[in-house]
């Protein structure tokens, strides 16, 4: 089964990449973008989706600094 993990910097932790993007957008003519945050996207096929949480805790994310969200993708999609 295809799964997607969204990993984001925890709220309150400085996100310099996000800030740099927010700074760069107006110069390119894009106004009104706010609260820009940059994280990581992991997509993978797994046999046992029950393992995903523990994969995230152990390897894919660092719970001290990152939040993660697991999405199971419809196999038909």
């Amino acid at each position, binding site marked *: 089964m295809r799964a997607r993990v969204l990993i984001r*910097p925890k709220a309150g*932790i*400085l996100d*310099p*990449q996000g800030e*740099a993007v927010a700074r760069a957008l107006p110069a390119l003519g894009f106004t009104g973008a706010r609260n820009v945050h940059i994280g*990581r996207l992991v997509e993978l096929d797994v046999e046992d989706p029950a393992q995903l949480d523990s994969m995230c805790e152990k*390897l*894919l994310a*660092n719970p*001290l*600094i990152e939040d993660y969200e697991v999405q199971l993708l419809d196999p038909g999609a």
Partner: protein
Amino acid sequence: MRFGVLQFPGSCDEIDALHAARRVGDAELLWHGTQDLKGVAAVVVPGGFSYGDYLRAGAIARFAPVMEAVISFAREGGLVLGICNGFQVLCEAHLLPGALLPNANRRFTSRQVQLEVVQGDTDFTRACPASLSIPAKHSWGRYYADEATLDELEASGQVLLRYAPTENFNGSLRDIAGVRNAAGNVFGLMPHPEHAVDPLTGSTDGLCIFESMRLAMEGAHA
């Protein structure tokens, strides 16, 4: 009194650390695939990019077979020094509090930095003067821990090194450049003391950290 310097396939500064340690004692390399620490009295987790570090610095290395041995070694009170990537690995392995994040300046930065020795009476700093000039070079060096943890680290004297004013290019909270664990036997820092051991290639200010460890090892055996 031997130092063991870990060697991952993507380590870069392990030979430098080996030679730095040899200036104060014996030292040998320990391959990442082994669980045998060969009786060393102190372990150095060196800089570099252990397993490529593509996901998050140090995230994969902490699961190396050798790290299992290092974790037990540390739990039993063995001296462990993590430099740069080694610091990241020790944080990921929960041997040290906190985590390292991408630099606030968003770039790999290589710069000689001025450090203040905050605690001079530890197994890692006993031989150090009050301030040190040492190179730093990394892209994931922003030390982070939550406020409560930071307060506690400061209160309990676990912050050993700070960046001097204006030197903190990576955005580390409270200018922290190096911390130790509560027990005092595990220490990690982002700057590279192993690159400051020879007047010809820079300063010799890093030597005091290895020298402090040697004193601690001898004390432990006395």
